């Protein structure tokens, strides 16, 4: 039996190889204890399906997104230009990432700084794998028949018009997808975008993630699916705040697929 492989671009380059796709892990995917599980799940799927991929590993750094949204354009561009040098150095053509913020930044904002890549979010990548028959779902897994709601991430949805891919992935699990009142173009933010993840909210009556979690719980869903590390944190905190962590779980799409695949 063989073990999972996580090749880096440097290792591949040393062998004179170039993978089909670079998996951009992101800071949350690298450091956040909860989101590391998502990174691992996605890597397992890539291994199982036999996708030719690599990661940057220690060479990866923050895309600069939160700095830019907080107004620090210098810091953003320092990060971006350095990343682009690394990516271009390896001749990267295609990037997949599990973070909608990284996705948006690399896809839409790196071209102005000389970084031109085909960038897709992991929900789109998973949908392609399912459609191509490369990921074969058992459908009888722990999600079968369960009520699941999907929380649209702003940087995936409104920012980039990706609404259907994550829903197609969820539906492939043979579950009952229930929509929240505010979904798709009207989806309510989890409260973490625009660098809010890195500071306390401004004074107000309520935290945004609580408002959103209440809406998710109102659907009667047994699980909340997300496609973003910040949304995952915010919704998980919201569910805990509502003391529902025992009966309502928050999952990333990749985790759900990996679970169904038994990996």
């Amino acid at each position: 039996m063989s073990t999972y492989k996580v090749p880096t671009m440097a290792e591949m380059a040393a062998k004179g190889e170039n993978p089909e796709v670079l998996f951009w892990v992101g800071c949350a995917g690298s450091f956040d204890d909860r989101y590391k599980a998502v990174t691992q799940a996605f890597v397992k799927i890539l291994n199982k399906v036999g996708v030719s991929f690599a990661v940057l590993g220690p060479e990866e750094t923050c895309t600069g997104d939160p700095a830019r949204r907080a107004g620090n354009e210098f810091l953003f561009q320092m990060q971006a230009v350095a990343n682009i040098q690394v990516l271009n150095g390896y001749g990267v053509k295609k990037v997949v990432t599990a973070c909608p913020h990284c996705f948006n930044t690399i896809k839409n904002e790196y071209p102005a700084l000389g970084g031109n890549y085909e960038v897709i979010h992991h929900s789109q990548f998973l949908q392609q794998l399912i459609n191509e028959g490369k990921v074969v779902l058992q459908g009888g897994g722990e999600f079968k028949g369960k009520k699941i709601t999907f929380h649209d991430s702003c940087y995936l949805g409104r920012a980039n018009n990706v609404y259907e891919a994550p829903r197609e992935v969820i539906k492939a699990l043979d579950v009952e997808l229930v929509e929240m009142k505010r979904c798709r173009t009207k989806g309510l933010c989890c409260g973490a975008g625009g660098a809010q993840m890195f500071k306390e909210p401004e004074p107000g009556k309520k935290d945004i993630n609580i408002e959103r979690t209440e809406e998710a719980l109102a659907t009667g869903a047994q699980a909340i699916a997300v496609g973003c590390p910040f949304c995952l944190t915010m919704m998980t905190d919201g569910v805990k705040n509502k003391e529902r962590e025992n009966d309502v779980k928050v999952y990333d799409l990749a985790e759900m697929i990996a679970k169904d695949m038994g990996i």
Partner: protein
Amino acid sequence: MSFLPQVAFLIILAVAAFILTKRVRFLKRNILLGKAETRNDQPEARWKTMLLVAFGQQKMFKRFIPAFLHLLIYVGFVVINLEVLEFILDGILGTHRLFAPILGSVYTAAINIFEFLAMAVLFSCVVFLIRRNITKVPRFTKPEMKGWPALDANLILVIEIILMMAILTMNATDQILVARGDEHYIALGTLFFSSLLQPLFEGMSDGALVFIERFTWWFHIAGILAFAVYVTYSKHLHIFLAFPNTWYSNLKPKGEMQNMPEVTNEVNMMLGIPTDAPADPPAEIGRFGAKDINDLSWVNILNAYSCTECGRCTSECPANLTGKKLSPRKIMMDVRDRAEEVGKSIDAGGPGLEDGKSLLGDYISKEELNACTSCNACVEACPVNIDPLSIILEMRRYVAMEESGTPAQWNAMFQNMETSFSPWKFSPQDRFNWADSVKEEEIPD
């Protein structure tokens, strides 16, 4: 016949044209206080957006009831204005219902359609007044709507109701005079809606009827001209500006922030990357980000003047919904009010932009800017494609780069990114540790 009415009419028309020209110049100059930005790419997509969003009211229909009522007023406005053409020609030539003999039964049909639309406009305006003042739809009662904005909205609705009443009254008395054999008036056959009003006037003398008919005619045409002038002082400008505003929409993905090339040059120099920037950099770079309206793009100011304060943005803003101070509608109103203030000051020979005030601080606070999650709900919600988010982000750039005024926790995040290349304080050496356990796991069959 005396030429007096014609002369009076021409004077009214000339005065209205004069004031309107002056107002349009004032507005144009204010909009161009913003920085130059070229947005002429993809003309086909731009025309299409304008056709769908402004002309076709596509985004209005995300909320059906107000969209339907608004559509009635919109169609009424456009179609009834065809009749204004006749009003103007009659006024200049001293004729009465110039087109009636030429068009015959088509004319009667047209007037019936206008009357139906007048009723529809009346109905919608009454419902809108109820929504604003009696049922108090929440988005119309937010703090930024207190005072003039609320009065402005009510005035517009009341003026429209009065103008429609004038048309119906005019038609009703006109046709009573026909029935009484006054040769000056032209028989039009049945006018369905205004004939319902006739019982109110039938007991009056011929003289009184002629007075009412003439009064309502003059009132309607003078009222429309006065309303056109009023619009330039009001949020109601959207009836014209919605069209250019949607034409100049942002066609890029909503998540994309505009690059700052002046920063790119410096970053490339710091990193030792050769740049194709001119050896002689422009003498004055100006400010980073936006402190005042002249730091914004002219499109931002056009957006502000196109805003009709409907508040759909604010009602979908996650920050506003949870009680934070931010309201995207207020951001737009602030930009417009500041542009007005600066414009008026310049015209009065005053200090203009140098009046010691600025958009940041005097109109928009950091607390508002800091509450934004950049989720684009406001941008998505706007029926005329206004983009409050780009203003917020430009102002954040000023706060961060010119004032170093970002919240302490953001400064800590910046520091983490500078030292460990992640927004959190982790050692960069540990970035790849997540793979350790996976690499040891066996792949099941």
